[in-house]
Protein backbone atom coordinates (compact mmCIF):
# COMPACT_ATOMS: atom_id res chain seq x y z
CA UNK A 1 0.00 0.00 0.00
CA UNK A 2 1.41 3.38 -0.95
CA UNK A 3 -0.07 6.46 0.66
CA UNK A 4 0.62 10.09 1.14
CA UNK A 5 -0.24 11.38 4.53
CA UNK A 6 -3.54 12.75 5.69
CA UNK A 7 -2.77 15.49 8.20
CA UNK A 8 -3.52 15.25 11.89
CA UNK A 9 -5.64 17.95 13.44
CA UNK A 10 -3.63 21.15 13.82
CA UNK A 11 -2.12 21.42 17.25
CA UNK A 12 0.35 24.09 18.22
CA UNK A 13 1.31 23.67 21.84
CA UNK A 14 3.50 26.38 23.37
CA UNK A 15 7.22 25.82 23.08
CA UNK A 16 8.46 23.76 26.03
CA UNK A 17 10.44 25.60 28.68
CA UNK A 18 13.15 24.24 30.94
CA UNK A 19 10.82 23.39 33.82
CA UNK A 20 8.83 21.17 31.46
CA UNK A 21 11.83 18.81 31.22
CA UNK A 22 11.94 18.16 34.99
CA UNK A 23 9.46 15.30 34.79
CA UNK A 24 11.81 13.40 32.52
CA UNK A 25 15.32 14.34 33.63
CA UNK A 26 14.63 15.15 37.29
CA UNK A 27 14.71 18.39 39.22
CA UNK A 28 18.34 17.81 40.25
CA UNK A 29 19.57 17.77 36.66
CA UNK A 30 17.66 20.92 35.94
CA UNK A 31 19.06 22.63 39.01
CA UNK A 32 22.57 21.65 37.92
CA UNK A 33 21.98 23.19 34.51
CA UNK A 34 20.92 26.44 36.16
CA UNK A 35 23.90 26.36 38.47
CA UNK A 36 26.33 25.88 35.59
CA UNK A 37 24.62 28.60 33.59
CA UNK A 38 24.88 31.00 36.51
CA UNK A 39 28.61 31.30 35.86
CA UNK A 40 27.89 32.27 32.26
CA UNK A 41 25.00 34.64 32.80
CA UNK A 42 25.05 37.47 30.28
CA UNK A 43 27.76 35.86 28.17
CA UNK A 44 27.12 36.28 24.47
CA UNK A 45 27.11 33.33 22.06
CA UNK A 46 26.79 33.26 18.28
CA UNK A 47 25.85 30.03 16.55
CA UNK A 48 26.47 29.91 12.80
CA UNK A 49 25.17 27.33 10.36
CA UNK A 50 23.74 27.40 6.86
CA UNK A 51 20.03 26.74 7.20
CA UNK A 52 17.15 27.65 9.48
CA UNK A 53 15.09 24.56 8.74
CA UNK A 54 15.58 21.10 7.41
CA UNK A 55 18.24 18.76 8.70
CA UNK A 56 19.34 17.75 12.14
CA UNK A 57 21.51 20.79 12.89
CA UNK A 58 18.68 23.26 12.39
CA UNK A 59 16.35 21.00 14.37
CA UNK A 60 18.74 21.02 17.34
CA UNK A 61 19.49 24.77 17.14
CA UNK A 62 15.79 25.58 16.96
CA UNK A 63 15.38 24.24 20.49
CA UNK A 64 18.88 24.77 21.88
CA UNK A 65 18.95 28.53 21.32
CA UNK A 66 15.73 29.44 23.22
CA UNK A 67 16.57 27.13 26.12
CA UNK A 68 20.07 28.60 26.47
CA UNK A 69 18.49 32.06 26.39
CA UNK A 70 16.16 30.96 29.17
CA UNK A 71 19.27 30.03 31.16
CA UNK A 72 20.50 33.61 30.94
CA UNK A 73 22.94 33.46 28.04
CA UNK A 74 22.57 35.87 25.18
CA UNK A 75 22.47 33.58 22.15
CA UNK A 76 22.21 34.64 18.51
CA UNK A 77 21.73 32.25 15.62
CA UNK A 78 23.16 33.39 12.29
CA UNK A 79 22.83 31.74 8.91
CA UNK A 80 25.61 31.79 6.35
CA UNK A 81 24.39 32.96 2.96
CA UNK A 82 25.68 31.78 -0.40
CA UNK A 83 24.40 31.24 -3.89
CA UNK A 84 23.44 28.00 -5.58
CA UNK A 85 26.96 27.43 -6.83
CA UNK A 86 28.40 27.84 -3.33
CA UNK A 87 25.99 25.34 -1.86
CA UNK A 88 26.63 22.91 -4.71
CA UNK A 89 30.30 23.10 -3.79
CA UNK A 90 29.65 22.71 -0.07
CA UNK A 91 27.44 19.71 -0.78
CA UNK A 92 30.31 18.14 -2.72
CA UNK A 93 32.57 19.03 0.22
CA UNK A 94 30.14 17.41 2.62
CA UNK A 95 30.07 14.20 0.58
CA UNK A 96 33.85 14.20 0.14
CA UNK A 97 34.37 14.54 3.88
CA UNK A 98 32.23 11.40 4.17
CA UNK A 99 34.81 9.75 1.93
CA UNK A 100 33.20 10.05 -1.51
CA UNK A 101 35.39 11.07 -4.49
CA UNK A 102 36.07 14.79 -4.91
CA UNK A 103 37.41 16.60 -7.91
CA UNK A 104 39.34 19.51 -6.46
CA UNK A 105 38.99 22.53 -8.74
CA UNK A 106 40.94 25.69 -7.77
CA UNK A 107 37.98 27.94 -8.68
CA UNK A 108 35.81 26.07 -6.15
CA UNK A 109 38.20 26.88 -3.35
CA UNK A 110 38.30 30.50 -4.52
CA UNK A 111 34.51 30.77 -4.45
CA UNK A 112 34.40 29.07 -1.05
CA UNK A 113 36.75 31.70 0.37
CA UNK A 114 35.00 34.54 -1.45
CA UNK A 115 31.58 33.63 0.00
CA UNK A 116 33.18 33.21 3.42
CA UNK A 117 34.57 36.73 3.11
CA UNK A 118 31.13 38.15 2.18
CA UNK A 119 29.56 36.50 5.22
CA UNK A 120 32.40 37.60 7.46
CA UNK A 121 31.58 41.19 6.53
CA UNK A 122 27.88 40.62 7.23
CA UNK A 123 27.81 38.53 10.42
CA UNK A 124 29.00 40.05 13.72
CA UNK A 125 31.50 37.58 15.11
CA UNK A 126 32.73 39.32 18.24
CA UNK A 127 30.55 37.57 20.85
CA UNK A 128 32.26 35.80 23.76
CA UNK A 129 31.78 32.45 22.06
CA UNK A 130 31.38 31.74 18.38
CA UNK A 131 30.19 28.23 17.50
CA UNK A 132 30.53 27.33 13.84
CA UNK A 133 28.54 24.31 12.69
CA UNK A 134 29.92 22.02 9.99
CA UNK A 135 32.38 22.69 7.16
CA UNK A 136 30.50 25.30 5.12
CA UNK A 137 31.26 28.26 7.43
CA UNK A 138 34.54 26.85 8.81
CA UNK A 139 36.74 29.54 7.23
CA UNK A 140 34.89 32.30 9.11
CA UNK A 141 37.49 31.67 11.78
CA UNK A 142 39.72 34.06 9.85
CA UNK A 143 37.67 36.80 11.47
CA UNK A 144 39.14 36.06 14.87
CA UNK A 145 42.33 38.01 14.22
CA UNK A 146 42.54 40.73 16.84
CA UNK A 147 39.57 39.37 18.82
CA UNK A 148 39.87 37.84 22.26
CA UNK A 149 36.76 35.66 22.04
CA UNK A 150 36.62 31.85 21.90
CA UNK A 151 35.91 29.88 18.75
CA UNK A 152 34.42 26.40 18.55
CA UNK A 153 33.95 24.17 15.52
CA UNK A 154 31.04 21.73 15.80
CA UNK A 155 31.50 18.97 13.25
CA UNK A 156 28.27 17.04 12.77
CA UNK A 157 29.63 14.69 10.13
CA UNK A 158 31.78 11.58 10.16
CA UNK A 159 35.33 12.77 9.45
CA UNK A 160 36.97 9.38 9.88
CA UNK A 161 37.64 8.86 6.15
CA UNK A 162 37.77 12.30 4.50
CA UNK A 163 39.00 13.00 1.01
CA UNK A 164 42.59 13.91 1.80
CA UNK A 165 43.14 16.81 -0.62
CA UNK A 166 39.96 18.47 0.64
CA UNK A 167 40.80 17.85 4.28
CA UNK A 168 44.26 19.35 3.71
CA UNK A 169 42.51 22.51 2.50
CA UNK A 170 40.11 22.70 5.47
CA UNK A 171 42.38 21.52 8.25
CA UNK A 172 44.39 24.78 8.66
CA UNK A 173 41.10 26.60 9.32
CA UNK A 174 39.97 23.98 11.84
CA UNK A 175 43.28 24.22 13.67
CA UNK A 176 42.66 27.90 14.35
CA UNK A 177 39.71 27.09 16.62
CA UNK A 178 39.97 26.78 20.39
CA UNK A 179 38.03 23.51 20.43
CA UNK A 180 36.32 21.03 18.14
CA UNK A 181 33.21 18.97 18.87
CA UNK A 182 32.49 15.54 17.39
CA UNK A 183 29.53 13.16 17.61
CA UNK A 184 31.67 10.06 18.20
CA UNK A 185 35.33 9.35 18.95
CA UNK A 186 35.60 7.48 15.65
CA UNK A 187 34.65 10.64 13.74
CA UNK A 188 37.77 12.57 14.80
CA UNK A 189 40.94 13.34 12.91
CA UNK A 190 43.60 13.59 15.62
CA UNK A 191 43.55 17.38 15.71
CA UNK A 192 46.06 19.37 17.76
CA UNK A 193 43.22 21.42 19.28
CA UNK A 194 41.02 19.89 21.99
CA UNK A 195 38.40 17.49 20.62
CA UNK A 196 35.29 16.98 22.73
CA UNK A 197 32.58 14.35 22.54
CA UNK A 198 29.22 15.99 21.85
CA UNK A 199 26.50 13.46 21.12
CA UNK A 200 23.68 14.83 18.98
CA UNK A 201 20.43 15.02 20.86
CA UNK A 202 16.70 14.71 20.53
CA UNK A 203 14.09 16.90 22.15
CA UNK A 204 11.85 14.61 24.21
CA UNK A 205 9.09 17.23 24.23
CA UNK A 206 9.00 17.94 20.49
CA UNK A 207 6.09 16.77 18.37
CA UNK A 208 8.27 13.96 17.08
CA UNK A 209 8.95 12.60 20.54
CA UNK A 210 6.42 13.78 23.10
CA UNK A 211 4.08 11.21 24.63
CA UNK A 212 0.92 10.56 22.60
CA UNK A 213 -2.42 9.22 23.69
CA UNK A 214 -2.92 5.60 22.55
CA UNK A 215 -6.00 6.73 20.61
CA UNK A 216 -3.87 9.11 18.53
CA UNK A 217 -1.40 6.33 17.74
CA UNK A 218 -4.22 4.00 16.81
CA UNK A 219 -5.93 6.56 14.59
CA UNK A 220 -2.71 7.25 12.66
CA UNK A 221 -2.11 3.53 12.12
CA UNK A 222 -5.67 3.06 10.96
CA UNK A 223 -5.52 6.02 8.60
CA UNK A 224 -2.47 4.51 6.95
CA UNK A 225 -4.19 1.12 6.72
CA UNK A 226 -1.87 -0.52 9.25
CA UNK A 227 -3.35 -3.29 11.37
CA UNK A 228 -2.41 -2.62 15.00
CA UNK A 229 -3.24 -6.21 15.95
CA UNK A 230 -0.39 -7.71 13.89
CA UNK A 231 3.35 -7.00 14.37
CA UNK A 232 4.55 -3.79 12.71
CA UNK A 233 8.17 -3.35 11.59
CA UNK A 234 9.06 0.28 10.82
CA UNK A 235 11.99 2.13 9.34
CA UNK A 236 11.80 5.92 9.39
CA UNK A 237 14.27 7.60 7.05
CA UNK A 238 14.39 9.51 3.82
CA UNK A 239 14.37 7.42 0.65
CA UNK A 240 18.12 7.18 0.20
CA UNK A 241 20.13 4.15 -0.94
CA UNK A 242 22.46 4.58 2.03
CA UNK A 243 19.46 3.85 4.29
CA UNK A 244 19.00 0.57 2.37
CA UNK A 245 15.18 0.55 2.15
CA UNK A 246 15.31 -2.27 -0.40
CA UNK A 247 17.43 -4.29 2.03
CA UNK A 248 14.74 -3.69 4.63
CA UNK A 249 12.12 -5.17 2.29
CA UNK A 250 14.36 -8.18 1.69
CA UNK A 251 14.73 -8.69 5.44
CA UNK A 252 10.95 -8.35 5.92
CA UNK A 253 10.34 -11.04 3.25
CA UNK A 254 12.62 -13.43 5.11
CA UNK A 255 10.73 -12.72 8.34
CA UNK A 256 7.37 -13.23 6.62
CA UNK A 257 8.19 -16.91 6.09
CA UNK A 258 7.74 -17.27 9.86
CA UNK A 259 5.70 -14.30 11.09
CA UNK A 260 2.54 -12.59 9.85
CA UNK A 261 3.91 -9.07 10.09
CA UNK A 262 3.68 -5.74 8.30
CA UNK A 263 6.40 -3.37 7.12
CA UNK A 264 6.26 0.43 7.21
CA UNK A 265 8.83 2.49 5.33
CA UNK A 266 8.19 6.10 6.24
CA UNK A 267 10.30 8.81 4.73
CA UNK A 268 10.46 12.40 3.64
CA UNK A 269 8.89 13.72 0.48
CA UNK A 270 10.91 12.87 -2.61
CA UNK A 271 9.56 15.63 -4.82
CA UNK A 272 12.46 18.03 -4.26
CA UNK A 273 15.16 15.38 -4.57
CA UNK A 274 15.61 13.67 -7.94
CA UNK A 275 17.69 10.88 -6.42
CA UNK A 276 15.12 10.41 -3.67
CA UNK A 277 12.40 9.99 -6.25
CA UNK A 278 14.44 7.37 -8.09
CA UNK A 279 15.02 5.49 -4.84
CA UNK A 280 11.34 5.72 -3.99
CA UNK A 281 10.65 4.10 -7.38
CA UNK A 282 13.10 1.31 -6.61
CA UNK A 283 11.42 0.77 -3.24
CA UNK A 284 7.97 0.61 -4.84
CA UNK A 285 9.26 -1.88 -7.40
CA UNK A 286 10.78 -4.01 -4.65
CA UNK A 287 7.57 -3.88 -2.60
CA UNK A 288 5.42 -4.98 -5.55
CA UNK A 289 1.79 -5.51 -4.69
CA UNK A 290 2.29 -6.75 -1.14
CA UNK A 291 -0.57 -5.11 0.83
CA UNK A 292 1.41 -5.44 4.05
CA UNK A 293 4.21 -3.18 2.89
CA UNK A 294 3.28 0.44 3.61
CA UNK A 295 5.44 2.99 1.81
CA UNK A 296 4.64 6.36 3.32
CA UNK A 297 6.03 9.41 1.58
CA UNK A 298 5.44 12.05 4.22
CA UNK A 299 5.81 15.83 4.05
CA UNK A 300 8.49 17.38 6.30
CA UNK A 301 5.99 18.60 8.89
CA UNK A 302 4.68 15.10 9.70
CA UNK A 303 6.33 14.96 13.12
CA UNK A 304 3.24 13.73 14.94
CA UNK A 305 2.65 11.03 12.34
CA UNK A 306 6.25 9.84 12.63
CA UNK A 307 5.89 9.85 16.41
CA UNK A 308 2.70 7.77 16.20
CA UNK A 309 4.20 5.33 13.69
CA UNK A 310 7.22 4.74 15.92
CA UNK A 311 5.01 4.30 18.98
CA UNK A 312 2.71 1.94 17.09
CA UNK A 313 5.58 -0.27 15.92
CA UNK A 314 6.53 -3.63 17.34
CA UNK A 315 10.15 -3.25 16.21
CA UNK A 316 11.93 -0.21 14.76
CA UNK A 317 14.60 -0.79 12.12
CA UNK A 318 17.51 1.34 10.94
CA UNK A 319 19.31 -0.80 8.42
CA UNK A 320 21.58 1.92 7.04
CA UNK A 321 24.67 1.15 4.98
CA UNK A 322 26.31 4.42 6.10
CA UNK A 323 25.07 6.77 8.77
CA UNK A 324 26.02 10.02 10.46
CA UNK A 325 24.63 9.53 13.93
CA UNK A 326 21.19 8.15 13.13
CA UNK A 327 19.06 9.97 15.68
CA UNK A 328 15.96 8.08 14.54
CA UNK A 329 17.40 5.28 16.67
CA UNK A 330 17.34 7.48 19.78
CA UNK A 331 13.80 8.54 18.88
CA UNK A 332 12.72 4.88 18.89
CA UNK A 333 14.61 4.06 22.07
CA UNK A 334 13.01 6.99 23.88
CA UNK A 335 9.68 5.35 23.02
CA UNK A 336 10.97 2.10 24.59
CA UNK A 337 10.94 0.30 21.26
CA UNK A 338 13.22 -2.65 20.52
CA UNK A 339 15.55 -1.61 17.71
CA UNK A 340 17.35 -3.66 15.06
CA UNK A 341 19.99 -1.45 13.45
CA UNK A 342 23.19 -1.61 11.43
CA UNK A 343 26.51 -1.22 13.23
CA UNK A 344 27.51 1.87 11.24
CA UNK A 345 28.26 5.53 12.04
CA UNK A 346 26.97 6.66 15.40
CA UNK A 347 24.46 3.80 15.78
CA UNK A 348 26.71 1.65 18.02
CA UNK A 349 26.83 4.56 20.49
CA UNK A 350 23.07 4.23 20.82
CA UNK A 351 22.56 0.50 20.34
CA UNK A 352 24.62 -1.62 22.71
CA UNK A 353 24.21 -5.06 21.18
CA UNK A 354 21.78 -7.31 23.08
CA UNK A 355 21.40 -4.59 25.71
CA UNK A 356 19.68 -1.57 24.22
CA UNK A 357 18.95 -3.16 20.85
CA UNK A 358 20.34 -5.56 18.27
CA UNK A 359 23.21 -4.62 15.94
CA UNK A 360 23.34 -6.27 12.52
CA UNK A 361 25.59 -6.28 9.48
CA UNK A 362 23.44 -7.77 6.72
CA UNK A 363 19.92 -8.42 5.44
CA UNK A 364 20.16 -11.96 6.82
CA UNK A 365 21.29 -10.68 10.21
CA UNK A 366 18.48 -8.15 10.33
CA UNK A 367 15.88 -10.80 9.44
CA UNK A 368 17.19 -13.19 12.07
CA UNK A 369 17.19 -10.60 14.86
CA UNK A 370 13.68 -9.41 13.93
CA UNK A 371 12.44 -13.02 14.15
CA UNK A 372 14.27 -13.49 17.44
CA UNK A 373 12.63 -10.40 18.96
CA UNK A 374 9.18 -11.29 17.66
CA UNK A 375 9.57 -14.72 19.27
CA UNK A 376 10.89 -13.28 22.54
CA UNK A 377 8.69 -10.31 23.44
CA UNK A 378 9.92 -10.24 27.04
CA UNK A 379 13.51 -9.78 25.88
CA UNK A 380 12.37 -7.21 23.32
CA UNK A 381 10.58 -5.30 26.07
CA UNK A 382 13.72 -5.32 28.21
CA UNK A 383 15.77 -3.94 25.31
CA UNK A 384 13.25 -1.12 25.02
CA UNK A 385 13.45 -0.35 28.74
CA UNK A 386 17.27 -0.31 28.66
CA UNK A 387 17.24 1.80 25.52
CA UNK A 388 14.98 4.34 27.16
CA UNK A 389 17.38 4.67 30.11
CA UNK A 390 20.35 4.93 27.74
CA UNK A 391 18.74 7.78 25.80
CA UNK A 392 17.61 9.49 28.98
CA UNK A 393 21.19 9.49 30.25
CA UNK A 394 22.97 10.48 27.04
CA UNK A 395 21.04 11.75 24.05
CA UNK A 396 18.57 14.38 25.23
CA UNK A 397 18.62 18.07 24.37
CA UNK A 398 19.30 18.94 28.00
CA UNK A 399 22.56 16.93 27.86
CA UNK A 400 23.56 18.92 24.82
CA UNK A 401 22.92 22.17 26.67
CA UNK A 402 24.94 20.95 29.65
CA UNK A 403 27.87 20.05 27.41
CA UNK A 404 27.85 23.53 25.87
CA UNK A 405 27.76 25.15 29.30
CA UNK A 406 30.67 23.01 30.47
CA UNK A 407 32.59 23.76 27.31
CA UNK A 408 32.13 27.51 27.69
CA UNK A 409 33.26 27.32 31.32
CA UNK A 410 36.36 25.38 30.26
CA UNK A 411 37.13 27.89 27.52
CA UNK A 412 36.95 30.75 30.02
CA UNK A 413 39.61 29.16 32.17
CA UNK A 414 43.12 30.49 31.63
CA UNK A 415 44.88 28.15 29.22
Amino acid at each position, binding site marked *: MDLTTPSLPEETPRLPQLDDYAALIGAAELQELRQLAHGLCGRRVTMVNTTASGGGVAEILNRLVPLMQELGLSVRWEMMKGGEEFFAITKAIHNALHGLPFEARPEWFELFLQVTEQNRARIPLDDDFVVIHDPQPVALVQARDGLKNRWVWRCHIDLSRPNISLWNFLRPFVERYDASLFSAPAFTQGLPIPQY*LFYPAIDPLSDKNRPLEPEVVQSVLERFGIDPKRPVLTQVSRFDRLKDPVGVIQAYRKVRKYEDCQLVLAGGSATDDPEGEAVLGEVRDAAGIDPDIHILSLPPWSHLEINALQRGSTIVLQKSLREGFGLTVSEALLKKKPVVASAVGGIPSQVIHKTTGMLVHSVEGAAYQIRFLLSNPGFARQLGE*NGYEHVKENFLLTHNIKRYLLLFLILLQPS
Partner: protein
Amino acid sequence: MIQAAEPFQFVAASYLIRIRTERAWTLAELAAHLTSVPPSSISYHTIQSLESHHYTSFSNDFAQWVAAACNETLLGEELGAIDLRDFVALEDLRRTLVETLASYLGRNPHSADRPGFEPFFFCEANEFALPTEIQATNLEELSKGIQQLSLQSLHYHFINSRIRLQLKTNDFSHWIARNLGLPVLAEDLNRVDFYTNTLEGVRAEIIEMIDPWI
Protein backbone atom coordinates in the same frame (compact mmCIF):
# COMPACT_ATOMS: atom_id res chain seq x y z
CA MET B 1 19.10 12.08 66.20
CA ILE B 2 22.86 12.63 66.16
CA GLN B 3 23.82 16.04 64.79
CA ALA B 4 27.16 16.52 63.05
CA ALA B 5 29.39 19.43 63.92
CA GLU B 6 30.60 19.60 60.36
CA PRO B 7 27.84 19.39 57.73
CA PHE B 8 27.96 17.16 54.66
CA GLN B 9 28.26 19.38 51.60
CA PHE B 10 26.51 18.02 48.51
CA VAL B 11 28.18 18.75 45.20
CA ALA B 12 26.79 19.01 41.68
CA ALA B 13 29.24 17.19 39.44
CA SER B 14 29.33 17.32 35.64
CA TYR B 15 31.74 15.94 33.11
CA LEU B 16 32.76 16.92 29.61
CA ILE B 17 34.49 14.18 27.67
CA ARG B 18 37.62 15.04 25.75
CA ILE B 19 38.65 12.71 22.94
CA ARG B 20 42.39 12.19 22.98
CA THR B 21 44.48 11.51 19.89
CA GLU B 22 45.77 8.11 21.04
CA ARG B 23 43.94 5.13 19.59
CA ALA B 24 44.73 1.43 19.71
CA TRP B 25 43.94 -1.12 17.04
CA THR B 26 45.73 -3.99 18.76
CA LEU B 27 46.43 -5.22 22.27
CA ALA B 28 50.10 -4.25 21.82
CA GLU B 29 49.06 -0.68 21.01
CA LEU B 30 46.66 -0.66 23.96
CA ALA B 31 49.50 -1.77 26.24
CA ALA B 32 51.81 0.94 24.89
CA HIS B 33 49.27 3.75 25.32
CA LEU B 34 48.26 2.53 28.77
CA THR B 35 51.73 3.35 30.02
CA SER B 36 51.75 6.88 28.61
CA VAL B 37 48.24 8.39 28.72
CA PRO B 38 47.59 10.78 31.63
CA PRO B 39 45.98 9.48 34.84
CA SER B 40 42.78 11.32 33.90
CA SER B 41 42.39 8.94 30.97
CA ILE B 42 42.92 5.87 33.14
CA SER B 43 40.31 7.28 35.50
CA TYR B 44 37.83 7.97 32.71
CA HIS B 45 37.98 4.45 31.29
CA THR B 46 37.75 2.67 34.64
CA ILE B 47 36.07 4.80 37.31
CA GLN B 48 34.02 7.18 35.19
CA SER B 49 32.93 4.38 32.88
CA LEU B 50 31.05 2.75 35.74
CA GLU B 51 28.44 5.42 35.19
CA SER B 52 27.66 4.14 31.72
CA HIS B 53 28.44 0.43 31.95
CA HIS B 54 25.63 -0.61 34.18
CA TYR B 55 24.23 -2.88 31.54
CA THR B 56 27.29 -3.99 29.62
CA SER B 57 29.24 -7.15 30.38
CA PHE B 58 32.30 -5.50 31.84
CA SER B 59 32.70 -2.61 34.19
CA ASN B 60 35.59 -0.84 32.49
CA ASP B 61 36.16 0.29 28.93
CA PHE B 62 39.39 -1.66 28.47
CA ALA B 63 37.76 -4.96 29.39
CA GLN B 64 34.75 -4.17 27.23
CA TRP B 65 36.87 -3.37 24.16
CA VAL B 66 39.17 -6.34 24.59
CA ALA B 67 36.21 -8.71 24.79
CA ALA B 68 33.88 -7.09 22.24
CA ALA B 69 36.29 -5.76 19.60
CA CYS B 70 39.24 -8.17 19.98
CA ASN B 71 37.27 -11.27 20.99
CA GLU B 72 39.76 -11.88 23.81
CA THR B 73 37.17 -12.83 26.39
CA LEU B 74 39.61 -14.30 28.90
CA LEU B 75 41.60 -11.06 29.00
CA GLY B 76 38.30 -9.18 29.16
CA GLU B 77 37.38 -11.09 32.28
CA GLU B 78 40.81 -10.53 33.81
CA LEU B 79 40.70 -6.78 33.19
CA GLY B 80 37.06 -6.59 34.22
CA ALA B 81 37.84 -8.30 37.52
CA ILE B 82 40.23 -5.56 38.61
CA ASP B 83 38.41 -4.09 41.59
CA LEU B 84 38.58 -0.32 41.97
CA ARG B 85 37.98 -0.74 45.69
CA ASP B 86 41.53 -2.04 46.00
CA PHE B 87 43.08 1.22 44.79
CA VAL B 88 43.51 4.70 46.14
CA ALA B 89 46.04 5.86 43.55
CA LEU B 90 45.51 5.92 39.80
CA GLU B 91 49.16 5.04 39.18
CA ASP B 92 48.66 1.79 41.10
CA LEU B 93 45.57 1.07 39.05
CA ARG B 94 47.49 1.80 35.84
CA ARG B 95 50.28 -0.56 36.94
CA THR B 96 47.82 -3.38 37.56
CA LEU B 97 46.16 -2.85 34.15
CA VAL B 98 49.55 -2.86 32.41
CA GLU B 99 50.71 -5.94 34.29
CA THR B 100 47.49 -7.83 33.56
CA LEU B 101 47.83 -7.06 29.87
CA ALA B 102 51.54 -7.93 29.81
CA SER B 103 50.91 -11.21 31.58
CA TYR B 104 48.20 -12.16 29.10
CA LEU B 105 50.32 -11.23 26.08
CA GLY B 106 53.19 -13.24 27.59
CA ARG B 107 50.91 -16.29 27.59
CA ASN B 108 49.29 -15.43 24.25
CA PRO B 109 51.92 -13.64 22.10
CA HIS B 110 49.94 -14.23 18.89
CA SER B 111 47.19 -11.95 20.24
CA ALA B 112 49.40 -8.88 20.47
CA ASP B 113 49.18 -7.61 16.90
CA ARG B 114 45.80 -8.90 15.77
CA PRO B 115 43.64 -5.84 14.97
CA GLY B 116 40.27 -5.45 16.68
CA PHE B 117 37.00 -4.89 14.78
CA GLU B 118 37.20 -1.25 15.78
CA PRO B 119 39.91 0.81 17.48
CA PHE B 120 39.95 1.83 21.10
CA PHE B 121 39.76 5.62 21.46
CA PHE B 122 41.37 7.06 24.54
CA CYS B 123 39.36 9.81 26.23
CA GLU B 124 39.42 11.74 29.47
CA ALA B 125 36.85 13.70 31.43
CA ASN B 126 36.94 17.33 32.51
CA GLU B 127 35.20 17.44 35.86
CA PHE B 128 33.16 20.34 37.21
CA ALA B 129 32.16 20.02 40.84
CA LEU B 130 30.17 22.90 42.28
CA PRO B 131 28.84 22.96 45.86
CA THR B 132 25.05 23.00 45.94
CA GLU B 133 22.79 24.74 48.44
CA ILE B 134 22.05 21.38 50.06
CA GLN B 135 23.85 20.37 53.22
CA ALA B 136 23.18 17.63 55.76
CA THR B 137 23.83 17.69 59.48
CA ASN B 138 22.11 14.39 60.31
CA LEU B 139 21.13 11.12 58.65
CA GLU B 140 17.66 12.28 57.69
CA GLU B 141 19.04 15.24 55.79
CA LEU B 142 21.73 13.04 54.25
CA SER B 143 19.09 10.59 53.01
CA LYS B 144 16.99 13.41 51.58
CA GLY B 145 20.00 14.95 49.87
CA ILE B 146 21.02 11.64 48.31
CA GLN B 147 17.52 11.25 46.92
CA GLN B 148 17.85 14.62 45.19
CA LEU B 149 21.27 14.01 43.61
CA SER B 150 21.69 13.67 39.88
CA LEU B 151 23.31 10.39 38.82
CA GLN B 152 26.59 12.09 37.94
CA SER B 153 26.70 13.71 41.37
CA LEU B 154 25.88 10.41 43.07
CA HIS B 155 28.75 8.86 41.12
CA TYR B 156 31.00 11.72 42.26
CA HIS B 157 30.20 11.17 45.95
CA PHE B 158 30.06 7.39 45.97
CA ILE B 159 32.58 6.18 43.37
CA ASN B 160 34.89 8.98 42.20
CA SER B 161 35.43 9.91 45.81
CA ARG B 162 37.55 6.83 46.47
CA ILE B 163 40.48 8.26 44.52
CA ARG B 164 39.85 11.82 45.67
CA LEU B 165 39.81 10.87 49.35
CA GLN B 166 42.81 8.57 48.90
CA LEU B 167 40.95 6.24 51.26
CA LYS B 168 39.18 3.01 50.44
CA THR B 169 35.82 4.57 51.13
CA ASN B 170 33.22 6.99 49.79
CA ASP B 171 32.11 10.50 50.80
CA PHE B 172 28.99 9.31 52.65
CA SER B 173 30.73 6.61 54.70
CA HIS B 174 33.63 8.93 55.42
CA TRP B 175 31.32 11.63 56.78
CA ILE B 176 29.12 9.21 58.75
CA ALA B 177 32.13 7.62 60.44
CA ARG B 178 33.91 10.90 61.21
CA ASN B 179 31.00 13.15 62.08
CA LEU B 180 28.24 10.89 63.35
CA GLY B 181 30.41 8.19 64.92
CA LEU B 182 28.52 5.35 63.21
CA PRO B 183 31.27 3.08 61.84
CA VAL B 184 28.96 0.11 61.32
CA LEU B 185 26.63 2.04 59.03
CA ALA B 186 29.63 3.60 57.29
CA GLU B 187 31.08 0.16 56.59
CA ASP B 188 27.73 -1.24 55.42
CA LEU B 189 27.33 1.59 52.93
CA ASN B 190 30.83 1.06 51.69
CA ARG B 191 29.95 -2.52 50.77
CA VAL B 192 27.14 -1.52 48.38
CA ASP B 193 28.14 -3.12 45.08
CA PHE B 194 28.44 -0.44 42.41
CA TYR B 195 29.57 -3.01 39.85
CA THR B 196 26.44 -5.09 39.67
CA ASN B 197 23.96 -2.28 40.29
CA THR B 198 22.73 0.62 38.24
CA LEU B 199 23.36 3.98 39.87
CA GLU B 200 19.66 4.17 40.66
CA GLY B 201 20.00 0.76 42.28
CA VAL B 202 22.98 2.01 44.29
CA ARG B 203 20.97 5.02 45.41
CA ALA B 204 18.03 2.85 46.50
CA GLU B 205 20.30 0.51 48.46
CA ILE B 206 22.05 3.39 50.24
CA ILE B 207 18.73 4.96 51.25
CA GLU B 208 17.42 1.59 52.41
CA MET B 209 20.47 1.15 54.63
CA ILE B 210 20.37 4.64 56.11
CA ASP B 211 16.64 4.84 56.84
CA PRO B 212 16.53 2.34 59.77
CA TRP B 213 19.19 4.45 61.53
CA ILE B 214 17.10 7.61 61.37
